[in-house]
C-alpha cells in the first residue's frame, strides 16, 4: 500500500467507526454537540498519532508477551497530557467532555491501531495511519453530531437554528445516537453495494 492509501483508508475503507465499529462508546456519548465532537476528535487524534509514533519506535525492543501493558502505558501517558492541558487551558471543554477524556485510554481505536498497525510498520506510515484514522473518526463524529444537535437541540455550533421550534429531545438522548449511527451505516452499505 502506498503512503497515501495508508492515510485515506481511515476515511472510508477502514473507517474506525463505520467499518471497524471501534470506539462506539465515546462516539455515541459525546456527539450531543458539534463542538464536543470536534474537541473529542482533536484529543483522540493527538493521542492516536503520538501513541502510534512511540509504539512504532519501541516495537523492536518490546517482548511480545508484555506488549499490551507497554502500549497502554504509552497511551495513558498521552491521555494524561491531553487531560491536564485541557483542564488548564480549556476548562469549559474539559467539563463538557467529562469522563470521556480519561476514557480515551481504553478507546479501542487507539489500542487497535497500536496492535494492528504501528507495532508492525515504520514511523512515517504509522503517523499517516494515525492521522487518517483520526480524520475518519472525526468525520463520523461530525456527521452524527450535526444531526443530533440540529434535530435534538435546535442548534448548530451552540447557536439557535429556528426560533420557537421545539426540538425533539429523543435525538439528544441515547436513542437518537443509535438511530443516527444506524442510518449512517445504512447509507454507507448502500453506496458500497452499488459500487461492488
Amino acid at each position: 500500500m502506498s503512503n497515501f492509501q495508508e492515510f485515506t483508508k481511515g476515511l472510508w475503507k477502514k473507517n474506525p467507526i463505520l467499518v471497524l465499529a471501534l470506539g462506539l462508546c465515546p462516539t455515541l456519548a459525546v456527539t450531543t454537540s458539534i463542538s464536543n465532537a470536534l474537541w473529542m476528535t482533536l484529543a483522540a487524534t493527538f493521542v492516536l498519532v503520538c501513541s502510534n509514533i512511540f509504539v512504532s519506535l519501541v516495537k523492536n525492543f518490546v517482548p511480545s508477551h508484555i506488549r499490551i501493558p507497554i502500549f497502554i502505558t504509552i497511551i495513558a501517558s498521552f491521555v494524561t497530557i491531553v487531560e491536564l492541558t485541557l483542564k488548564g487551558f480549556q476548562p469549559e471543554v474539559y467539563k463538557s467532555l467529562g469522563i470521556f477524556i480519561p476514557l480515551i485510554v481504553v478507546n479501542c481505536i487507539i489500542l487497535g491501531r497500536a496492535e494492528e498497525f504501528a507495532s508492525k510498520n515504520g514511523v512515517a506510515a504509522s503517523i499517516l495511519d494515525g492521522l487518517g484514522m483520526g480524520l475518519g473518526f472525526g468525520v463520523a463524529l461530525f456527521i452524527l453530531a450535526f444531526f443530533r444537535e440540529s434535530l435534538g437541540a435546535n442548534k448548530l455550533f451552540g447557536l439557535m437554528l429556528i426560533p420557537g421550534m421545539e426540538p425533539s429531545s429523543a435525538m439528544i438522548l441515547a436513542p437518537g445516537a443509535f438511530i443516527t449511527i444506524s442510518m449512517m451505516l445504512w447509507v454507507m452499505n448502500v453506496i458500497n453495494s452499488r459500487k461492488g
Partner: protein
Amino acid sequence: MTNIGKSAIILGIITFISAFLLSHVMRITYPEIVRQEKEKEKRALALVLPGYKIGEKKKMNINGKETPYWIGEKEQGKDGKKEKVRGIAFITASPGYGEDIKSMVGLDRNGTILGISILEQLETPGLGARCIEVASKLTFFGFIFGEKADEEENQTPWFQEQFRGLSITKKIKILKKGDWNPGMRKELLKENAISAITGATITSRAVVKSLNRGIVVLEKIKNTPEAKEDNK
C-alpha cells in the same frame, strides 16, 4: 528467569520515562488549573453578591459537609446616613440527573437570594444543561449572514436569573410555566416560585433542593464571630 527479568526491566524503563514526562507536564499545567478555578470563583462571586466587597474564603463544617463561604460588605442608603450591609455567599450542591449540581448562592441577612450561579453540572445537553443557557436571540443563520449578538443582552442564564429576589426562608415552589422571561418575574416573586426547565424537572428540583439547605447554612454563618460584628 532471565526472560522475566528482561521484561520487567523494559516495562520499568518505559513506565519511568512516562512518569518523568508526566511530572513535568503536571508542573506546567498545575498553576494554570488553580488559576482557572480561582477565576471561576471570582466571576461567580461577582454575580451572586453584586456590588459587594468580598472578604476571604472561609470554610465551615455543616452536617458533616465542608462548606466554603464568603462574607461580603456593601454600603447602602442615601448620602446622609450610610449603613453597612452584609451578604453571605456559599457553595451548595444536590444530585441532579447527572452528577451533583454545584451552585454558589448569595444571600442577604434576611435570607433573600441576591443571585445564584451554577458552578458545576453534568446534566443532559439540550435538557437539564439548559440551566446554564443564556437566552440569546442570535440564530445560526443570523450569524452566517453577519448579524452580531446584542451587546446589551443579559448574559446571566435565564434559569439562574429567576432566583434573584426569592426568599429561602419559605419553601421555593416549582411551577411549570415554560421558559422564564422577565415578564414573569412579578408573578413568580409573589408565589416564591421558579419556572422549571421544560423536560428537566429533576434538574430544577435539584437546584431548589440545594437552596433549601441554605437556611441551615445561613443560620450557622450568622452565628460566626465575624458575621456577628454588625449585630452591635
